[in-house]
């Protein structure tokens, strides 16, 4: 069934999302959990050169990067890279589960039911394999696209331009697949059908999807700009600036995830309502 493009859909989504947050703050819990998890991972990596964590983490750092990265202040040079590795790996468990739970909570809240975290966990775990598959697919598509682009941008010798192009690629891929995870949780779709559903929704709401993915993601630009400045700031301010920059990054990513996931889920639910009305 073809649903007409509604230009007023974006304000409606924002209004609905704000109302849901106000009425059911529990929706924030999964995003807070991801942020806390990321923070704990970051602190563990920050404390890696020191006992008791050094007994577990120092041999890994020593083997892959060298002894010097276990000493102050050189350990801060590698902290962002280490954090990215651990975070990417952990996101396949913590990120997937928390996102699934958040979609389930938003759905309950949208339907006017008091959101139940345990109900959300149950629902997510049942669909975990499909969620991981879609999550992995998005991850691989973004990685492959940025790597391919890297071959062409390498000769530009501009980290800023490369970041800009990577950012655009990442936004585009997210726009295409942003509804896949909500449709698995809400509509219990299979992997391929969830992807088809996501593409169809993007086709129906291109501007709204662009806005709901792109606007929150813009927050990432100042964080990345700051990240580029880190080596110089390490010299002029203090090496610890890296740690604070990564904490800020965690907070920004949590806000972006919250905004994108919530608004995409609400858009899907609104669209389903329309579909149901149309069917009736």
């Amino acid at each position, binding site marked *: 069934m073809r649903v007409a493009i509604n230009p007023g859909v974006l304000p409606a989504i924002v209004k609905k999302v704000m109302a849901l947050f106000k009425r059911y703050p529990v929706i924030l819990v999964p995003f807070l959990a991801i942020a806390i998890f990321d923070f704990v991972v970051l602190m563990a990596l920050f404390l890696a050169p020191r006992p*008791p964590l050094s007994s577990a983490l120092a041999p890994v750092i020593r083997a892959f990067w060298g002894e010097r990265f276990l000493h102050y202040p050189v350990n801060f040079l590698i902290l962002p890279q280490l954090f990215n590795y651990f975070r990417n790996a952990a996101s396949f468990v913590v990120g997937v589960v928390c996102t699934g739970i958040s979609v389930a909570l938003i759905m309950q809240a949208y339907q006017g039911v008091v959101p139940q975290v345990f109900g959300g966990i149950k629902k997510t775990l049942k669909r975990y394999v499909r969620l991981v598959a879609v999550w992995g697919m998005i991850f691989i598509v973004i990685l492959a696209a940025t790597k391919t682009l890297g071959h062409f941008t390498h000769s530009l010798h501009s980290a800023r331009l490369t970041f800009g192009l990577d950012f655009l690629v990442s936004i585009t891929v997210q726009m295409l697949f942003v509804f896949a995870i909500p449709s698995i949780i809400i509509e219990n779709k299979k992997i391929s059908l969830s992807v088809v559903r996501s593409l169809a929704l993007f086709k129906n709401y291109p501007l709204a999807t662009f806005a709901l993915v792109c606007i929150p993601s813009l927050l990432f630009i100042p964080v990345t700009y700051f990240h580029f400045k880190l080596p110089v700031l390490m010299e002029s301010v203090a090496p610890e600036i890296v740690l604070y920059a990564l904490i800020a990054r965690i907070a920004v990513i949590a806000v972006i995830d919250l905004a994108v996931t919530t608004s995409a889920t609400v858009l899907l639910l609104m669209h389903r309502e329309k579909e149901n009305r149309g069917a009736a």
Partner: protein
Amino acid sequence: MRNNRYRLTGTLLPFLLLFFSACGGSYDAEKIFWHAGRKHAAALKDPVQADEARFSEAVSALKKIVARYPSWEDSGDIQFLIGQMYGMRKDFKRAHEELTRVVTNFPQEHELCARSLFGIGSIYENQDNWKGALAQYQQVIDRYPTTMTGLQMPLYIANYYRTHGLKEEAARAYLSARNNYSNLIDINPYDKQVPVLQYLLIASYAWQNQWGEAIAALEDMARKHPQSEAAPAGLYRVAMIYQEVLKKPEKAVAVYREIIENYPKSRLGKNAQLEIGSLSLFQGKVDQAQVEFNEIFQKYPEDASLCAVAQLAVASGYEKAGRWEEALKEYRKLQSDYPDTLEALQVPLLIARHYQKQNQPAELRKVLDEAAAHYTQIIAKKPGPRIEAVAQEYLAGTYSMQGEWEEAIKALNVLRTRYPNDPRAEIALLTMGVIYQEELKDTRKAAELYLRFVQEYPKHSMAGVAREILKHLQPGGRDQ
């Protein structure tokens, strides 16, 4: 409400415990020392020029670190540094006190204690109190006889007398130093310090220009301990004296032959044959050198790395003599006979450099293409991290010779990420900076890489150069 508070405390407690249990120890000491170094950089770099207040602040910061982290491995060095700083400002009383603290508070660090006692002796020397200085130097010899400072002390004392025109005292002191070194070798001719002792023994003769006596002493030592490493090592030094100091290559060759005959399987025996070949090369006798190097191939065919060195010497000998066809043949032989050696790895680049020197661009292009393919193939075979890292470095070198700067940077990046513990990875970072600065004219990226280099390897011998370049690097790169 109270339950919630308990729950929150219960959740946070493990993290807080983890955090605070991780505080303290050497990492924190490193951190405080780094910040103190930055805050008081000027006073630490030049304590003489620093005003009293700044100097006191710097010393006080260092003292706090030593007091707070006495068991940190660098605390002794910092205590020594405090003493040195007072010494440089000619505050000898405080310098004496601080250096004495090294000896009393860090008795397990023998080398540092010896250096501190030597420092105290130098203070006496500065005050024209040789008697006081000598007492300290004698303490170094008595208490820390096997430290590097302790070993050098007898020679230092003798040199003092010589430079002050006290001939008789100097002669006695040199004799005493020689006896000291000879005795130490005689006590344990198998000790790992024997090469240092032999060096000091030769130096004790050299200062008096007594090369003949030095040779006699070393030969005597070889006769006394024929089974120890000291014997071939001593004879090797005799040959080197003939070769480098007395300029008697034929005598040197005779001694090398004696080593080969008596110690054919020892490392020095093998090296002696290499030296004979190299001497012939140095004298321009390429064919004679070839004969000498052939001895190595016949006698030690199992020692691939030695044979590779010899083969490389043969090839480069022909090249230097202008006999390129023969040189090329020998280079190819090196590649085919000893493919897994570091010497064989150099061959493609050596051939390329020849064509570059000869200004033969067509040949050069062909050889460089072959070299790139060769190194890529070697890396793909995964012969081990050491060979792979070298091949990766040579691959970057090949691309640089081709002017393929992007590829060179990629190769250097791979070297850094795949072999981060290899010393070549350190220089790779600097090389990338140079390529960006000189070839790609991207000063911003170059500055980033130089900064990364000084941050990652602050103690590297090239860190100072990188800091200087950073200071003078003008903006204006493509990203500006």
